[in-house]
């Protein structure tokens, strides 16, 4: 187990090398003035800004992270729960799923003003925004995963007249695991965006920082905020990966047998 995480970490070094390469090219492009630095600041410039304003950036990042954790956590729980509901009651699926799609396609930016009216300034709105954008991928993926449960195994379970709960927890959720994890990974990225867009309007966190910097043409600060938000997303994906590896402990959830 530990070994696997190690291998995985080592694998990641490749990404660092690629990152270094990318940053060098970027730095060079800006140094050559092929792109004006008021549009695209150089990596070193971004780095200096980040160091200089670290206390504020750190506080903003933590606040955003907090909102994301709540929003994403809620959408994992309710996404899986809703998928189970829809799976168990096809009537509910047919009746409600289109509205989930509907909800999903409302640009958060155009309903964030409504959210802020309902939830007020600050974190609740931001959490709601992160939740709304990250719900559907988990819901859709879990639902597909549940529907793809091997019918042969379902037949086997049926022999023992399982309760719906047993069927769900012992068969359907385990089979849907690869789907659910992919859904969560997609949602992690979206939750970050949702939180930041929410903060554009409801204030607080990195969103507010980016928004203020944007109008002040502090492109370096905008990028600093953007980088921090991406770091949050990568960290989230990393945590999801590690947690899932520990939880699954080398079990062959792929249908190998």
């Amino acid at each position, binding site marked *: 187990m530990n070994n696997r995480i190690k291998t995985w970490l080592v694998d990641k070094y490749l990404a660092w090398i690629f990152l270094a390469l990318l940053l060098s090219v970027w730095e060079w492009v800006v140094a050559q003035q092929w792109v004006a630095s008021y549009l695209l600041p150089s990596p070193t410039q971004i780095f200096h800004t980040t160091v200089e304003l670290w206390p504020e950036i750190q506080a903003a990042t933590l606040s955003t992270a907090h909102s994301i954790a709540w929003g994403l956590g809620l959408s994992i729980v309710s996404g899986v729960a809703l998928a189970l509901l829809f799976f168990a009651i096809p009537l509910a699926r047919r009746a409600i799923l289109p509205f989930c799609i509907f909800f999903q396609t409302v640009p958060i930016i155009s309903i964030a003003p409504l959210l802020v009216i309902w939830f007020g300034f600050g974190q609740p709105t931001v959490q709601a925004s992160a939740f709304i954008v990250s719900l559907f991928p988990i819901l859709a993926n879990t639902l597909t995963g549940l529907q793809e449960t091997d019918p*042969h*195994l379902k*037949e*086997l*379970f*049926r*022999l*023992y*007249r*399982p309760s719906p709960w*047993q069927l769900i927890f*012992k*068969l359907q959720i*385990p089979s849907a695991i690869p789907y659910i994890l992919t859904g969560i990974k997609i949602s992690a990225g979206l939750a970050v965006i949702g939180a930041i867009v929410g903060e554009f309007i409801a204030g607080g966190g990195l969103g507010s920082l980016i928004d203020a910097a944007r109008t002040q043409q502090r492109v370096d600060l905008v990028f600093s905020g953007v980088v921090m938000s991406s770091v949050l997303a990568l960290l989230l994906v990393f945590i999801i990966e590690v947690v899932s590896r520990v939880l699954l402990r080398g*079990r*062959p*959830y*792929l*249908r*190998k*047998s």
Partner: protein
Amino acid sequence: MSAIDVNQLGKRFSAGARAVIEDLSFQVSPDETLCLLGPSGCGKTTLLRLLMGLEQPTSGSIRIAPELAQHMSYVFQEPRLVPWRTCLENVLLPLQLLGRKNPAANTRAHDLLHQLGLDERLHHFPGELSGGMQMRVALARALVTEPRIVLLDEPFAALDERTRFRMQDLLLELKSRLQLQYVFVTHSIAEAVYLGDRILLLDRTGSARDWRAIDFQERDQLLKLTPAFNAVVQVYSQLFSDMERAEALHVPRATEVRA
């Protein structure tokens, strides 16, 4: 009253398709074991699934004595193990689902796996087992619930002859020790004769050709060497041949075994 009562049973998989089973009627008395014999694709699995309630008949009816129906068990033609559960966890699955996970049941699971020669494989995943081992795990899983009747679909096909003989004897032992009744699908005439009090010979036209009670006093592997046993096997072989000739199967170079 009979344990199983099948009445004018019919099954086709789609409206236009040929009937897999047609107008089939038979009864099985309590404590009588039944073997289903027939060529590949004749409908043995389908009949077994109908008995278990895994398929719905298109016509006719099936009645299983209520005291048996409550304690039925099934072994699929393929092992059908849950890939993310270890060998032992797979055997414990029915107990968990039935809410009967207690120390006694646990011991029984270990005992069964021991009897089936799987001691060293308790914590392996199905993907790490050989084909025959997987089938034995499936067998343990079917027996761990202490069923009154178990339906088995060619459970020993993947086993070598010696292991197979041991499993046959294990089944006979369970039958006498626990009053376990079974319906056993096989394509081996000798196996059917050895294990079945009655044999139902299915053919490809969807109906059962013939069946008769076999009354051997004692069954062990020595029985297979007796003339009486071989006589019965010969009779069934002949029936089998007649059936196939009647059907005029399109298989070239079919050399007949002389009975």
